[in-house]
């Protein structure tokens, strides 16, 4: 139980062990651990960035939605206006058409009346002629009295 040369062997072993630990355990492990720390820090900051981007996108989307809503309302009111306009136009058109048709019909009626009156006149003339012939007992020379007859027709 006294100190002997084992001491030197153990000192050499210890020195080797320290060298080994430094080279093959401590250095690679701390390197790897630092790398991991870096990764975690990066990941966290990236996550934060992503969160901020998400928030931005959300507000942006909200803005877009409200804009779209406004637009929709605008479009709706425009359509409403246009609708009433169209209806109004159609009403006006219809009224005008109706008037036009009425006017045309009236004109036609007038024409018809005139034609009937003309016919009636001619017929009345011939009847009058026939009557006169019968009264006079002889044929009236149509040609001779044509002027007279024409005057008569005009008078009726």
């Amino acid at each position, binding site marked *: 139980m006294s100190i002997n040369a084992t001491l030197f062997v153990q000192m050499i072993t210890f020195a080797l062990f320290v060298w080994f*630990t430094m080279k093959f355990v401590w250095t690679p492990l701390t390197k790897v651990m630092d790398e991991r720390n870096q990764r975690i820090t990066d990941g966290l900051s990236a996550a934060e960035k992503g969160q901020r981007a998400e928030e931005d996108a959300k507000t942006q989307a909200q803005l877009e939605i409200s804009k779209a809503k406004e637009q929709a309302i605008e479009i709706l009111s425009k359509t409403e206006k246009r609708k009433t306009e169209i209806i109004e136009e159609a009403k006006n058109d219809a009224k005008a058409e109706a008037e036009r048709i009425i006017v045309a019909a009236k004109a036609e009626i007038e024409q018809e009346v005139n034609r009937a009156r003309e016919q009636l006149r001619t017929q009345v003339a011939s009847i009058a002629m026939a009557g006169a012939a019968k009264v006079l007992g002889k044929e009236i020379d149509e040609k001779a009295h044509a002027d007279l007859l024409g005057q008569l027709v005009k008078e009726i």
Partner: protein
Amino acid sequence: MAASGDLTSVEYIQHHLKNNSIGDGFWTLNLDTIIFGWLTFALVAFAAFRMRKSLTAGTPSGIQSFLELIVEFVGGQVKSIFTEANKLVAPLAMTIFVWVFLMNAMDLIPVDLIPKILSWFGVDYVKPVPTTDLGTTFALAISVFAIIIYYNIKFKGPIGYIKMFLFHPFGKWLMPVNIIMTTIEELAKPVSLGLRLFGNMFAGELLFLLIATLIVIQALIPLQIVLGLGWAIFHILVITLQAFIFMLLSTVYLSLASQTLDDH
């Protein structure tokens, strides 16, 4: 077991406390101490090489996460004591912690197991716990002491180191006292480091041996089992604590050595 047969308790204990050695006088080599020291080293080397294959900055697994745990623990301790950036101190502290722990842990192997197995191969004496050998504890202590002196000279300068002996702790009017005090203070560091570890581990080993001798009386076998188990469980604490203390004190001494005189 070994206590049976023709050995008395005293002979049994003496038998177990004898190193397997070659050589004479000072130039004796305790082969068991050296070989078990190397075996524990080899264990760490094996673990390190296994780890190198799958070393990753991603999720660590198996050996890597275990070694990272130690690195983190030792690194934290060293960083809190040794404020300056230094490449050597942290790996040194980790080596001390791991190696001392593993050598201490040999104590948890049943005291008769290794000697019995080796006795079948014709090996008469074996003491498997290297830290119960003063050669090991003082090898560590003297190595640390050498680095302490190196750091003193490196950081304080040769003149600063001599000044520390002359003017510390009582100022320049008590110079002779200072020299004696500082010398004692400095020498106490390796001596206390080496003896503390040796004393604790030797006492632990001796207690295991004493418990093992209970087997001579048949009625005491249950008591032996209970005591052996109890002491082994308690000893887990002791071996870890001793490894930790050795590491921590070495770091503190090195930190003191690396301070300049103004810091004192």
